[in-house]
């Protein structure tokens, strides 16, 4: 079972994801250079956060043309799990693997802070160890995390249970005040129709250890391990 963390030029959470998987969870993990095409011996791909290609033009817009992305598309279409965190989420929407787009934060400023997430779908490779509606404290750090999608798509996303995380308060109430960036419906993370591709703006890899004051991210990464081990997905 092998995890791969993709390095685009300008990705800056590469080491963080690698460390979280390899050192904190003890998983076999390798870096994947953006020029790589062969992803055959990986079981799960992580598109990490950062500023791929400087986020010039539009966040994730250039990275989607990296050679590795053709293979990531293929990998995802074969049903294997792909997670995009922050910039990785932006790349996945640009690549068409996930619906919607991420716009500038409503207040037009970069936001780095702890936020709370309500888990709305535990039937995914990334949330199968979460309890129903579990509230997780996970940090965000982005300038463009304002999720937007058209009404029709949103409707079908709801029907398909594709909204995985929403911003909420510490008690799990999804309120305007708990929405850090103006995201439509407080959406913080979504998956594809098949459920094997997840994009989320918050950074679970940043809260995996006691010394960092927060371990809520563990459940997400452990869910991935559990899924790959053939663990049961919640029904």
């Amino acid at each position: 079972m092998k995890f791969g963390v993709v390095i685009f030029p300008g990705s800056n959470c590469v080491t963080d994801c690698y460390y979280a998987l390899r050192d904190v969870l003890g998983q076999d993990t390798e870096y994947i250079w953006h020029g790589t095409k062969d992803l055959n011996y990986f079981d799960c791909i992580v598109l990490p956060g950062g500023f791929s290609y400087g986020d010039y033009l539009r966040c994730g817009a250039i990275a989607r043309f990296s050679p590795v992305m053709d293979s990531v598309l293929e990998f995802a279409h074969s049903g294997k799990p792909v997670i995009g965190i922050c910039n990785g989420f932006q790349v996945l929407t640009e690549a068409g693997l996930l619906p919607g787009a991420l716009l500038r934060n409503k207040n037009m400023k970069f936001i780095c802070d702890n936020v709370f997430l309500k888990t709305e779908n535990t039937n995914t490779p990334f949330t199968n160890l979460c309890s129903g509606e579990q509230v997780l404290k996970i940090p965000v750090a982005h300038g463009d995390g304002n999720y937007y999608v058209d009404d029709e798509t949103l409707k079908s996303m709801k029907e398909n249970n594709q909204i995985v995380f929403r911003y909420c308060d510490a008690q799990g109430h999804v309120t305007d005040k708990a929405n850090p960036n103006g995201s439509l419906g407080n959406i913080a993370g979504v998956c594809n129709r098949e459920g094997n591709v997840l994009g989320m703006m918050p950074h679970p890899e940043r809260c995996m250890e006691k010394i960092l004051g927060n371990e809520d991210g563990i459940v997400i990464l452990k869910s991935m391990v559990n899924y790959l081990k053939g663990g049961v997905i919640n029904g």
Partner: protein
Amino acid sequence: MDKKAYEKVGLTSGEYGRIVDILGRQPNNLELNLYGVMWSEHCSYKNSKPVLRMFPTSGQRVLQGPGENAGIVDIGDGLAVVMKIESHNHPSAVEPYQGAATGAGGIIRDIFTMGARPVALLNSLRFGELDNDRTKYLFENVVAGIGGYGNCIGIPTVGGEVYFNDCYKGNPLVNAMCVGIIRHKDIKKGTASGAGNAVMIVGAPTGRDGMGGASFASTELNQESQENRSAVQVGDPFMEKLLLEACLELFDTGCVIGVQDLGAAGLTSASSETASRGGSGMDIDVDLVPRRETGMIPVEVMISESQERMLVIVEKGREEEVTGVFEKWGLHSSVIGRVTDDGILTVRDKGQVVGRLPAKSLADEAPVYHREYKEPSYLEQIRVLDADRLEIPADLNGVLMKLLASPSIASKEWVYRQYDHMVMTNTAVAPGSDAAVIRIRGTNKAIALTTDCNSRYCYLNPGVGGAIAIAEAARNLVCSGARPLAVTDGLNFGNPEKPGVFWQFRQAVSGMSEACRVLDTPVISGNVSFYNETDTHAVFPTPVVGMVGLVENTANITTQAFKDEGDIIVLLGKNGEEAGGSEYLKVVHGLEKGSVPNLNLDEEKRLQDCCLELIDSGMVKSAHDCSEGGMAVALAESCISGGLGAEVEFETCGRKDFLLFGETQSRILVTVEKGKLEQLKNIVGRFDVPVLELGRVKGEKLEITVAGQKEIGLDVRDIETNWRGAIKCIME
């Protein structure tokens, strides 16, 4: 040669004469420009050198003192901390976003030039009062610029300070600090040696931006400065991220002899300084430098301050290894010349020699000035504070709330929320406590980081103010559980040619030096920024102290937050009622005067040792330095951070307002479990430090009784809303 030519590049007639003596002839235009930038104050420290010699710069742990791109201090296990602070004041006054962004970019390069991976950024910012649009614009864009650069490159901005005072209106101060971690064996130096070795320029192509920035930084700001935007560089953090990764990968190959960042004075300083350090010369051809603009003449290439470039000295025959690594990262790398053994910097254009000058004369032989100094006359009037004429406010609750909403004291969340302070996943203590703490992976250690300076104290008494800046920085680290290791200083002053300003400078450095000696924190790197003046006034003397400390065991990391109901609140150190120079006097009485608080360095040292011993013993649950706003603000901050109230009592026969809001030095508030109080007192007794039980952590209110009367009674939630929202409310 036209007499004005040397004036145009910022040189005096005396300096011009010296150049003619060195060369034995008149310099040509290119050569003159090179001397102009290299002999500017910014590059040569010609006004400050003799004074800076006062600083203690060596110590058991110092691996690299001043004189390199950054200082290095040992933290054991074969590891070391690399640190430096630098000012970007003038660029930020004119073009705040790019000025601040490139300030961060420049200081990051100084760190990885030494071979280290940068792990944290800090800053020290000063603006005018937030009562006008121009200042808000500067504040907003400086913060955005620092964030824009640090967030993109992926180095956490973990701490700093922001102050507001009218003396900075028109001349804000933007000091950026970077800290890196390195293995001793990987340390790189800015040295060019070995005739025939290749001189390569790597990273971004060269353009016309930042022309003469070093000279621009060495004059006062005026109306014309606003037009001087071409002296401000433009930053590209994405490019720097690639450069950072490529350089660290390159250093691993072992083919690099020396490396230097192209900062102030660009290729001129990088070439002449590396050659001078190595006792070598260099023969370079500007035609081989990759450009991003056409039609650049040789002098423009030599003094351009285009960002994200490095000069690398590479072992002869291994140039292709460099090209390989940089191509992988999509970056330029070009051989532009060779190291020579003649000590001469030879500049060519398409092979033709266009300048020949001794490298050492550019880098190290600028004239040194022993400036005149004299105590400025303003001091006499502001020293005296007639306290009897100040009414004691009836509503001390109101005073506390007003102080907590004063932008210099209020929460800086509006600022640090815009900085990614968590990337790299090492931030154990985020912004908002006494110091930031970064754990060192693979060890049980952590480092604590802070920047500090109360410039009002320095304005009222630069000697004591300078010493307090060092003492307070060290105290902040100690409160976090760290033993202070070393200092990087950012000395921001007015025009040194004015005797009053130079007196402030000398006094401040002297006060800092004494404190550094007693507290065993040598100065290992730093930066001097003079000419921080506008048409009407100079800034307060502002010697910013950047300090790093070592937490030997991460279990000892301590924060200011109250932890548990029932814990006993104890004051270490002598309580006092010194109000001179306080935020209270300024905010409530509109006065910036009086005697600054007294500082006894021996007492301070004992206090800090005592606090560390207590933390080591494992009994301290929280520790917080009492600084701006005094005891009442310190208690309020610990309540807010912990989400808990406190009940506290003081005795006094003096003034209640001075007791609560005065800024007496050498005081630390700690909390312990009730059952451990006696044990604490025993340890404190060994250090001969005064100790006073003040009260306990309790409920949801902060209640302070003074001389039997309840003076403060506020809900922690109300205090927090007021403190947290103050800056946001002004800015949005």
